[in-house]
């Protein structure tokens, strides 16, 4: 029997592989005057962008498919890979459909990449999104609201619609809806990992990075419906949580390699931006929706390496997640030279060790071509976890 989800996964895969952003160009054809605004990974307030009539487009580097020449010429060997491919794609004209790019405050590399963008593409709209590291509503919240207003204002000067609270309310509602469907998909992955592979979920979620929220929600729903029609048999794999504060994405083949090595990835932070807000964005009675968007980030933003931990304990939320999804262990995969993720790693490992959660780690680059070592390592880890589980 043909897989009922096959066509959907293929569609998502083609969107993910669409480096030239043809779906974005298509959207612009159908939305005359609409701006397409790229953004670097992890988190930007997408409902805000959509509310002013723009299409937010998540940019995740070039993967393993492109030759890097000009990109490498700007970056020393000790810099991670995503800025190289991002510059390469832009200089090759692959981002021509974009009217601007947002650079959220992920790390110094992405921050400075924003500065380079100003120099390389002086005509494009370029903005640094300084996400607050102070989580007090009256301080960090106030600053963040002003940041968002600034971006909306600047985009309006370039042809976006003025920020209308009602439009923002509607976009927040759409975002909440998507968020709920993603949660549903996540729950399904945890309950029946043999029904939905992590690699499939990855494609379906990531495809939304270049889509309007409502279309993405539709895709997610169709996918969930389709996989529920699959006839499957439970497989007894090791359940792992895969974390890496992912900005640079691992090559797709790497995710597949981990699955093949006997690991069910029951939770991950590949596309953390899509799940950044823990639960719905709630707008209080009479509240400015922009305040609500800021408040959701302050109060319900998930832990990741680029967000200040405050008074919390590093790794505690991960240990909680491991318990919640009944995982057997954690695989920590950081992009090579990723300062935030790698500086977090010892703290997270310490927390996992303290909580007796087995864990292993490796580094990758988006253009990694060889997975045999990682596959072996993951295989050994899953064997060890099984033995460990049997012994305890």
């Amino acid at each position, binding site marked *: 029997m043909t897989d009922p989800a096959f066509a959907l996964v293929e569609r998502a895969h083609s969107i993910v592989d669409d480096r030239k952003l043809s779906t974005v160009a298509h959207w612009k054809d159908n939305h005359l005057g609409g701006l397409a605004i790229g953004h670097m990974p992890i988190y930007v307030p997408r409902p805000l962008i959509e509310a002013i009539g723009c299409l937010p487009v998540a940019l995740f580097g070039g993967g*393993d498919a492109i030759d890097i*020449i*000009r990109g*490498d*010429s700007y970056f020393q060997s000790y810099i991670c890979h995503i800025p190289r491919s991002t510059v390469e794609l832009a200089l090759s004209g692959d981002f021509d459909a974009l009217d601007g790019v947002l650079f959220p405050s992920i790390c110094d590399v992405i921050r400075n990449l924003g500065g380079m963008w100003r120099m390389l593409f002086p005509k494009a709209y370029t903005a640094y999104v300084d996400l607050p590291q102070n989580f007090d509503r009256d301080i960090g919240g106030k600053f963040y609201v002003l940041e968002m207003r600034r971006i909306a204002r600047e985009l309006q000067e370039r042809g976006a619609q003025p920020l209308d609270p009602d439009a923002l309310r509607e976009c927040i509602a759409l975002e909440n809806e998507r968020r709920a469907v993603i949660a549903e998909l996540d729950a399904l992955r945890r309950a029946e990992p043999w029904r939905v592979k992590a690699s499939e979920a990855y494609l379906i979620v990531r495809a939304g990075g270049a889509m309007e929220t409502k279309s993405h929600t539709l895709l997610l729903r169709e996918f969930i419906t389709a996989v529920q029609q699959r006839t499957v048999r439970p497989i007894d794999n090791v359940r792992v949580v895969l974390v890496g504060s992912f900005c640079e994405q691992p090559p797709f083949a790497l995710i597949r390699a981990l699955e093949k090595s006997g690991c069910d990835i029951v939770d991950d932070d590949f596309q953390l931006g899509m799940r950044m807000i823990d639960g719905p964005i709630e707008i209080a009675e009479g509240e400015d929706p922009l305040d609500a968007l800021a408040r959701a980030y302050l109060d319900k933003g998930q832990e990741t390496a680029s967000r200040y931990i405050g008074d919390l304990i590093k790794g505690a939320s991960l240990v909680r997640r491991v318990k919640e999804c009944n995982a057997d262990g954690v695989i920590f995969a950081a992009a090579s030279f990723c300062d935030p993720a790698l500086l977090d790693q010892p703290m997270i490992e310490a927390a996992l060790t303290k909580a007796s959660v087995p864990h292993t780690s490796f580094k990758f680059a988006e253009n*990694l*071509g060889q997975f045999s070592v990682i596959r072996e390592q993951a295989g050994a880890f899953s064997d060890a976890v099984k033995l460990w589980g049997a012994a305890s």
Partner: protein
Amino acid sequence: MRCVLGIDLGSTTTKAVMIDESGRMLGKGITNSRSNYEVACAVARIEAHTAARFDMLERALSYDPSAKAWLVPLREAFRFELFLDDLVDLRATIATNLEGSPYADNKALARAVTSVLDSVQENAADLFVAGAPRRSDFFRDIAGALFVAEAESLARVGVVPFESLVGLYDRAILEVETRLRPRDTKSLLLRAVARSVKMPELDGTSAQQHQRMVQMLEHAVCEATKEQILEIAVVGTGYGRQTLPFPKEAVRSEILCHGRGAHRVFPGTRTVLDIGGQDTKAIQVDDHGVVTSFQMNDRCAAGCGRYLGYIADELGLGLHELGPLALSAKKAIKVNSTCTVFAGAELRERLSLGQRREDILAGLHRAIILRAMSLLARSGGVKTEFTFTGGVCNNAMATKVLRELVDENYGTDIQLNIHPDSIYMGALGAGLFALDALAGDIPPLPAFVRDTRMEAT
């Protein structure tokens, strides 16, 4: 004759170029770099002198059009005479070392070494004929290959262990090649004349003709070695310039020298790419050949000649065989890492996956050139005319991929120059700096030039 000398001490080879006062290139010489840099420079210098003498010899014979044909065997004979002199030294060194060793009384070993060396001498003769397949002109390479082959066959019949024989060679060759012996070019040439007339290429000519030719050649040798070559200024460059055996004032950066040398040979050059053993350099020059900017690879040797060396070792191939093999590839497998440290492991893994050797090699070449392209972009891109130099430019696959990528990235109207003598660009540039010095402050001569009279004449 007054002239200047430029010397480029590289990580694998040392090159010298001799230029006369009018800027004409008189001769160029090359030798393998060795632990004693001073000897390496001195040998390269002597080789340049020899080349200059051959050049003069050619001119001395220019009145007779048939004489040109005689020069080919003469050159081979000359190299063979040099080889034999080196072999005498090697023989003596081995004997001395053996005497002082715990095996002094091991008669079997002594006999075996003598027999190996005799065979080396005998077999070498076949290598010094025109068109003979000689991988290298360096004594170390020729003698080493012959010695090892002979030692292997002796060891196979159980006379003495292979390791003992090769151990003797390894120790002695280090001494021999770091010992500088003066070269009497004239008498060597005369010996070569005597030998060359016996060479098989000359069979079929009558005894009378031989006699006449010998006289003519001997006369030409005397003519060509009459005038003394006097080096007025020497400039050195090369890898690890801190340790170069030159006075500080006589040292120029290899960046400047490569840029200037390439520009001299191809005056339209505005961009130079040099891929050597240890590093890759992208250089931009102005219309006078003066460097305007440059970029070098970072501290790791990824993407340099050395990387290809590792790959060749890993595959058990000669360096020169990589390019042709890669050219036979049906497709280039995508290789993203040019890390020298992981080269071997990655290669083995790909082979074990059943990927074809030539396809992997094609991918590796492409990866190396991609890195070079980044360095070029970093230095300011490729402008109108572009010259590729360094050891790797002799690799046909490397140049093919470079051409393709330059076309792709900078358009098809870029002139790409590759010169058969591109390995001498650095030494040529250094020589041009030495020529400049004649007009101003002449730097002190390096000790190995100052203290040695080149020729007994």
